[in-house]
């Protein structure tokens, strides 16, 4: 039986990249020049932070896994730039871009990668497990799709507490085949929860292409129909488009308390993680084509220069400043101390760290 060949792609992706059709969309038109430059700056900061991470990893200072976000910047930047006080963010393990977008600093992020006590999780979480609850950022989750029920729960709490907010729950295209994601979809739709499931579709679940992993490929967002949920497909190389289409979903969450599945088409330039030699499952030409023609940072830079919001000189300065900031972060991480052996058994139980008269528990809680 022939496989269905219909791909549900955003219209703008079917044409060569050019000026954004979404520049005049109200959410973009209302941005001041300063806000646009700030958005560009944030994308550049993600890019340079990640590029700097590669060097730190190659120096052997970052352990385990390092999943880079380079190429996907417009997704986190576009979506998170729209969020307000009661909007929450949760994602999978490719979480550096989201972390920087919600306002986490390069220093704490870099120090976490090198396992230092000055890291955002005191060196206890690592690359895949960044958190900043004070910034409504709930991780950073290592198990594919495991964050989908949590994100749905955050949206449930927002609704329970009577707040006009939402949860943006990000996942990769590989996550859509996990059972937990489908269970989360069902609950979100059944209970009208203000959650937006953002599928960052970079084409590969680790080294397995969509065609080899997913029945009915090209229609990941459309699975929402099975749950009666709204869905949309978005060109993730164009930050204006990401903002415009996410705004629709956000309005649906805020005003109708309804969930949405957004499939945002994007691309990662590096392997699944630094442990992936990236030689077996895709063509170098493919990567080159994306870098040259669809790079989200360069496209936005061109856009802003064309609309005279930015000059090439200013763009250069922004990039240089981001590189310097990333260098400083690497230095900060280098110079920071490790956690101590005593720290290993802290932050496990609330009461262990908050012993007081009102502590309800007794007994041994951490064992030798």
């Amino acid at each position: 039986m022939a496989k269905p060949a219909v791909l549900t792609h955003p219209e703008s992706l079917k044409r060569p990249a050019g000026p954004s059709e979404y520049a005049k969309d109200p959410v973009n038109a209302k941005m001041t020049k300063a806000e646009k430059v700030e958005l560009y700056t944030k994308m550049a900061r993600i890019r340079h932070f990640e590029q700097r991470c590669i060097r730190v990893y190659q120096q052997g200072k970052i352990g385990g896994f390092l999943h880079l976000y380079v190429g996907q910047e417009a997704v986190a930047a576009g979506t998170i730039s729209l969020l307000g006080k009661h909007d929450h963010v949760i994602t999978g393990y490719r979480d550096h871009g989201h972390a920087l977008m919600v306002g986490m600093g390069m220093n704490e992020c870099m120090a976490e990668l090198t396992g230092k006590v000055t890291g955002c999780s005191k060196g206890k979480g690592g690359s895949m497990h960044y958190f900043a609850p004070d910034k409504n950022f709930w991780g950073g989750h290592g198990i594919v799709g495991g964050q989908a029920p949590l994100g749905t729960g955050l949206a449930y709490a927002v609704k329970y507490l009577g707040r006009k907010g939402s949860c943006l729950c990000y996942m990769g295209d590989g996550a859509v085949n996990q059972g937990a994601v489908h269970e989360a979809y069902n609950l979100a739709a059944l209970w009208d929860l203000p959650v937006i499931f953002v599928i960052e579709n970079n084409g590969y679940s680790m080294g397995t292409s969509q065609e080899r992993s997913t029945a009915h490929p090209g229609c990941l967002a459309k699975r929402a129909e099975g749950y009666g949920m709204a869905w949309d497909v978005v060109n993730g190389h164009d930050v204006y488009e990401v903002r415009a289409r996410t705004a629709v979903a956000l309005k649906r969450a805020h005003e109708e308390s309804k969930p949405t599945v957004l499939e945002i088409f994007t691309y990662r330039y590096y392997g699944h993680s630094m442990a992936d030699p990236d030689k077996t499952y895709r063509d170098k030409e493919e990567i080159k084509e994306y870098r040259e023609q669809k790079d989200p940072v360069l496209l936005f830079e061109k856009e802003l220069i064309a609309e005279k919001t930015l000059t090439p000189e200013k763009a250069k300065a922004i990039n240089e400043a981001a590189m310097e900031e990333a260098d400083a972060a690497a230095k900060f991480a280098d110079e920071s101390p490790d956690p101590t052996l005593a720290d290993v058994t802290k932050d496990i139980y609330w009461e262990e760290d908050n012993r007081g008269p009102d502590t309800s528990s007794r007994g041994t809680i951490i064992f030798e």
Partner: protein
Amino acid sequence: MAVMTYREALRAAMREELRRDENVVLMGEEVAQFNGAYKVTEGLLKEFGPKRVVDTPISEAGFIGLGIGASMLGIRPVMELMFWSFSYVAFDQIVNNAGNIRYMSGGLINCPIVIRGPANGGTNVGATHSHTPEAILASHPGIKVVCPATPYDAKGLMKAAIRDNDPVYVMENTILYNDKGEVPEDDYVVPLGVADVKRQGEDLTIVAHGRAVITSLKAAEILEAEHGVSVEVVDLRSIRPLDEETVLASVRKTHRVLLVEENKPFCGVDAQIAYLIQSRAFDELDAPIHRVSSVDAPQIYCKRLEDQQIPNPARVVAEALKVLA
């Protein structure tokens, strides 16, 4: 003091905590309209309405994960698993997410969730519905596990669990749901991590938890009546945190120890208790420690054999006599 069943005691705890804190929510399969598969939550929907008492689809990974996410924002969900055996399809949520979130966030995130439901064999339902996962779960730092054996403890531990700022997993027992006992009607908690000497004795210490406590108390009566042996029964009540001192004090008093649990023996809770005693009270022992656990096989369906597979008073008496020999 009122006399009520274990089931009613659990319900009283939840009712009181629902009244006490508007962020407490009960959630689970059949907990609301159906009044609970085992009627533990009976009447609570009527009293508190559908915002506080919520029926979920059969979707454990989904709704348990949802509860964990909601708890991070300050909701205190009390999630019913129809059986703890069903937790296995939600293992990633229960262990990886609830158990690790505080640690991986460097202590920034609380996860004040309670997951409760029966965790027992002995009900003639076969292996898939008869798991006792307290040892598996308690082996993960970040998680707390309690196993009430009496109505008094059921209410007190449930209330402590709901007020706790960490994930607390309450293992109930369907066979105990109709057991009656005295339960104060006022507000009290049984702190997590405090064992209880359910029977004083001089010659032998039995350490047990959950329904094995009831089995051990029956065995203690037989041992006293038929063999003239004075048995002390220590109810752990809480697996993690663990009240090591109460166990050790009893060992120092009787110098002989029998460990009884409804788990399978391999990597069971009592393996840890045996280690504790030998490491801290080795010189107090007058005889090797013995154990009575469920026979090491998947739970058998046949009722006549299942009653012998899990610890019963006869098996406990026989093993106790070996320790005393």
